[in-house]
């Protein structure tokens, strides 16, 4: 894009064509105050505090946020007249503002407070009008304090423009105008809290943070959200070593789980001590007791039945380091390849072979977005947000497959109101023969005309759907896939080789690779591939698996039918942060530290390497997973000697080529995987396991797992939508 020259406060700078005056001022390093402006939103021009002087225009002052800069424009950001006008705006705002800063949670990070200090406002020339309206406590999670509202409309706009929810709106007019929901009813939305985040004053606050801390007493720790595969950057804000609230870090968005659901780790039912089964009852014990029992039992079972009768189910929510150490422990110490995650049952076929996700923040670079999973906003909220941003900010076209109605219908260019498989068949037909319904033809024409297309791949795919997507993509010039991934570190667990037939880095287990890894790890490795999760479960019923080590997963919680099967095990170890349904069946239960309490790395669905940083001390006696595994390995005669997660990551980098020079925050390229473009299928299918969908009275968004259901804040949201 060509540039233009703008002079701001005497400084000449080049900015791209189409920039606003405000953007030019920012580029020139001149700060212009704003109240209603945010880079995430369309310019609004309501607060009139960003006024500047532009040479040669008929109007005395020009609003900088809404006015495009032009070539050779000369702008002044301060002058006595401008200061006077800005002071007037602040003075007018303060007439009604309650000035209850001492009890307002926003104090210290309030734009109005900051500006009033900056512009040094003294006694007002106007009579105050403190019409106190009681705060609205009726909604879950979010409190609304109308008296503090300055009507900048940011909440209204973010909810509409970024979220496509539109829960807030202006009602009434003039001085009686206010922000409200429909008829002032309690909020019934996604509860992402973006409106609270963007509110420049304390009009919207959260119950979670109410009276918890003053903003200036908080310390931030940058980390990664542990809920879904998007892996949004979060900032854990702590006071005296305890998390008080969470804010967004990298992606400039957090969903309700990311922002409010972290409090599950403060739940009273967190496991704080190891437990062992004595006379059929789980009782507290010491770490040493617990670890000795595990080491002894595994050794005994190994020598009695053979290593192939021991298996391990890993987690898709623990760090890369935890997963790496877990599989290495099973392979080198227990000497089995019976390693897997149950989460592979709930992933799309073709993930990491055909489907490699594009970068989420580049969603808007595609002319057309084809959404094949109507639940995209619930499964991967950030993917949903990026779609809305692409449509609303960049005018991208959206083709939505949805046989129901949700927020995406409101912004879709074409809706195909049918099942995914039907829609795909129709699109393929319309693209090749031009036949089909009006909608299919319109959608096909849009796809055909597009330079590039983003396809949102459903979280689960049938073989037929998989083939159809490939057929469809074959007819289009350029396609980027965005597969949906439910769990935070699913990608990482695959990368780390928590699979029975692949070593870390997707090296297929064969003679050569086994020899390589035996050398790298200086260990004896099992000669055959192991059982996958489905085979392991089957093997238990057939008496072919005697011991199972489960790290951070809850099979019995996801599928009650597995309870009886797991009870048949001779020895079951469960390592988790809660006493889950599975843990209740275990012989030994080990308390793990949560992701807020440890360091390491996650790899999100974009294959982005992200740093998880410790924000608080592990609760009770809980410990990071890798430390626990390493101790057991040591007791079993293994040779692991990692001092920290950094040591583990260094080893990962030396073993997994894709991670070799991978910088934090960067995504590894699909070419780095030996499976790229291959026919391998990394998803699992089963006719019996985890088949039944859990009936929930709440939306997927608020009830997607056992951790989120233990969040107090999320629990306050009441929803009555039944999903089967």
């Amino acid at each position, binding site marked *: 894009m060509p540039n233009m020259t703008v002079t701001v406060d005497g400084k000449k700078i080049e900015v791209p064509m189409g920039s606003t005056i405000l953007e030019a001022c920012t580029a020139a390093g001149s700060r212009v105050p704003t109240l209603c402006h945010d880079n995430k939103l369309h*310019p*609004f*021009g*309501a*607060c*009139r*505090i960003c*006024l500047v002087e532009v040479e040669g225009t008929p*109007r*005395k*002052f020009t*609003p900088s946020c*809404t*006015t*495009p800069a032009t070539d050779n424009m000369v702008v002044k950001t301060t002058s006595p007249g401008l200061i*006077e*006008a800005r002071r*007037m*705006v602040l003075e*007018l*705002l303060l*007439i*009604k503002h309650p000035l209850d800063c001492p009890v307002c949670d926003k104090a210290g990070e309030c734009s109005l407070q900051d500006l009033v200090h900056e512009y040094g406002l003294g006694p007002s*020339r*106007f*009579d105050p009008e403190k019409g106190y309206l009681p705060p609205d406590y009726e909604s879950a999670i979010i409190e609304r304090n109308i008296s503090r509202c*300055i*009507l900048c*409309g940011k909440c209204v706009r973010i909810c509409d423009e970024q979220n496509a929810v539109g829960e807030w*709106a*202006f009602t*009434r*007019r*003039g*001085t*009686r*105008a206010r922000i409200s929901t429909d008829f002032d009813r309690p909020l019934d939305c996604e509860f992402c809290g973006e409106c609270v985040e963007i509110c420049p004053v304390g009009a919207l606050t959260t119950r979670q943070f109410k009276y918890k801390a003053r903003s200036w007493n908080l310390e931030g720790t940058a980390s990664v959200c542990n809920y879904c595969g998007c892996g949004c950057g979060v900032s854990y804000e702590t006071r005296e070593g305890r998390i008080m609230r969470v804010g967004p870090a990298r992606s400039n968005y957090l969903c309700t789980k990311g922002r409010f659901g972290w409090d599950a780790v403060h739940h009273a039912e967190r496991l704080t001590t190891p437990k062992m089964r004595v006379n059929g009852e789980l009782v507290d014990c010491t770490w040493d007791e617990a670890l000795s029992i595990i080491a002894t039992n595994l050794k005994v079972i190994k020598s009695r039945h053979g290593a192939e009768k021991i298996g391990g189910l890993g987690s898709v929510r623990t760090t890369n380091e935890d997963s790496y150490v877990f599989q290495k422990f099973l392979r080198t110490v227990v000497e089995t390849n019976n390693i897997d995650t149950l989460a592979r049952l709930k992933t799309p076929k073709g993930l990491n072979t055909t489907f490699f996700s594009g970068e989420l923040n580049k969603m808007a670079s595609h002319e057309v977005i084809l959404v094949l999973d109507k639940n995209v906003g619930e499964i991967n909220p950030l993917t949903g947000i990026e779609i809305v941003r692409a449509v609303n900010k960049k005018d991208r076209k959206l083709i939505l497959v949805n046989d129901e109605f949700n927020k995406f219908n409101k912004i879709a260019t074409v809706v195909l109101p049918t099942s995914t498989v039907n829609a795909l068949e129709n699109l393929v037909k319309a693209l090749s023969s031009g036949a089909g319904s009006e909608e299919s033809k319109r959608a096909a024409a849009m796809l055909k005309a597009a330079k590039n297309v983003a396809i949102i791949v459903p979280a689960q795919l049938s073989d037929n759907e998989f083939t159809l997507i490939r057929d469809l993509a074959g007819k289009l010039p350029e396609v980027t896939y965005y597969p949906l991934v439910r769990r935070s570190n699913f990608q990482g667990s695959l990368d780390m080789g928590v699979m029975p037939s692949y070593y870390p880095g997707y090296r297929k287990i064969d003679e050569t690779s086994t020899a390589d890894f035996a050398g790298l790890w200086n260990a004896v490795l099992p000669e055959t591939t192991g059982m996958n999760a489905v085979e392991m479960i089957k093997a238990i019923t057939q008496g072919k698996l005697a011991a199972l080590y489960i790290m951070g997963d809850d099979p019995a919680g996801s599928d009650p039918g597995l309870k009886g099967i797991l009870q048949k095990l001779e020895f079951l170890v469960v390592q988790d942060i809660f006493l889950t349904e599975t843990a209740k069946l275990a012989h030994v239960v080990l308390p793990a530290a949560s992701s807020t309490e440890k360091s390491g790395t996650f790899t999100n669905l974009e294959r982005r390497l992200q740093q998880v940083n410790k924000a608080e001390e592990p609760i009770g006696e809980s410990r990071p997973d890798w430390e626990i595994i390493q101790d057991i390995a040591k007791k079993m005669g293994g040779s692991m000697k990692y001092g920290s997660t950094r040591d583990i990551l260094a080893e990962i980098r030396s073993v997994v080529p894709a991670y070799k020079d991978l910088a934090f925050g960067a995504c590894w390229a699909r070419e780095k995987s030996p499976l790229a473009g291959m026919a391998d299928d990394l998803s699992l299918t089963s006719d019996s396991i985890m088949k039944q969908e859990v009936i929930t009275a709440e939306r997927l968004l608020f009830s997607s797992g056992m951790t989120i259901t233990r969040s107090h804040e999320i629990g306050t949201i009441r929803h009555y939508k039944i999903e089967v």
Partner: protein
Amino acid sequence: MNKDVSIKVCMGTGGIAAGGVEVMSTFEKALASVGIKAAVQKNCSMHKVGCRGFCARDVLVDVIIDGTKSTYQYIKPDMVERIVQEHVVGGAPIGDWLVTDDYHTFHDKQVKVVLSDCGEVDPEDIDSYLGRGGYEAVKKVLTTMTPQETIDVIKASGLRGRGGAGFPTAVKWDMAIKATGPKKYLICNADEGDPGAFMDRSVVEGNPHAVIEGMIIGAYAIGAPHGYVYIRAEYPLAVERLHLAIKQAKERGYLGKNILGKGLDFMIKVKLGAGAFVCGEETALIASIEGKRGQPKAKPPFPVQKGLWGYPTIINNVETLANVPYIIRKGASWYAAMGTEKSKGTKVFALTGKILNSGLIEVPMGIPLKEVIYDIGGGIENGKKLKAVQTGGPSGGCIPANMVDTTLDYESLSKVGSIMGSGGMVVLDETDCMVNVAKYFLQFTQSESCGKCIPCRVGTKRLLEILTRITEGKGREGDIELLESLAADVKTSSLCGLGQSAPNPVLSTIRYYRDEYEAHIYEKRCPAGVCKDLLSYSILEEFCKGCTACTRVCPAGAIIGEKKKPHKIIQDICIKCGACFETCKFKAIKKG
């Protein structure tokens, strides 16, 4: 005895309010009764017509016999029988009921373009309009002119937007013709919201086809296949007639696909506004049509770049569009010959206030204000003295009596601190308090502020608050300066025209009547005797005869005294209604 009789009854909103419907039906009955038709022996037609301006004299009835027009005023149903018998049948007009000379002086200085067919054509009958040359302009542009030539004619005529700002119409259309996009829209802004203004309503009620014809020509010129008329729902008659006119125009092939076989497609939709004043602002109007909250957006992008549903959109006012067919028919030079150098043509004003002949007038641009007040308006009511003329409604300002030589055109009005606006003209006399006038307009703008931007939302409220306390006698030292400073800031900082012009009534009254403000604040006195809280009534003992007339009318029982002895007003009880002042025959009540 062959006669061609035509009877026209004023059926504008004013005419209907005065009883037009009853008059009309009585005429119909009387004419239909046996014998009349035979007696007249030839055509006798009845028409309802739109407003002809002189609403104060409604119901106005024209009886035209063989081209000789007699106009009756103040007609009631019971007078109809005699008119039919003596005039229609007998051929002798009833002299007592005919309009008087001032009816003619009211019209003499007017030049009617937009209103030329109002009051003549039957607004509910397209043939009536066609009979007076209607839709000739459409035929002319479609058969003989290119869109660019059409715009050139408008440019040569010098037509400027009649909505208030006076932006040259041809320049606007020129931008639209250059705008590219799959769709374009032409919107007619009939959201007339100024208090006391009824120009656009009268045009739509009196001659809706002229507006439609103007829109067709505009659509042809800019290449817009879709049109909207945004009209307020409070104008039910105008809406009804507009719908009817669109239907008739469609039936005759002036609207729809392939108009007059010339390949032009154009259809008009009517969108009813809910009455928010701010929806007269272009971007708010567009938001309202889109079904969104009627709230202005920042410009740029201007509607001509990104308007309705994101497409290039032109918005013209009713009066602007109604001018267009006449300009096309009679030529640009005919139009440009009227008016001043920069303001061409005529302008319709709603003349109200303390004026003898209130009503709807159309005058050539550049006419001195004096002529409008004293010749057309017939001077001030009740022999009082002119104090000021307020033009431009709540966005306008006051022109004091000593500047009555000011001419009515965009430039002169802005020079004296007022605006042309959409054409409201309120005449004020010596009994009007200027602080109160400013307060009145601020009350309006304050309650019509949409609340989006801070200066307008909070600023107008504070201006009103200060004005209110001044009129209540609670004005403080420095209030005038505070008003001036706040008004200036609201003017420069507000988002849209509403806020940018809302302080005008304050600034203009301070400019010319600062002494009145000072009297209110420092002397706690309202020189015009309007502000109740600054008033007191007392009885002058030397004049009071003790007739007790005042005690009998006093609703508060505040006047005491024995018969035939001077009375007294108890100030604590007095509610200052002024009833005693009006009643006293001996001028014994002192106001002040």
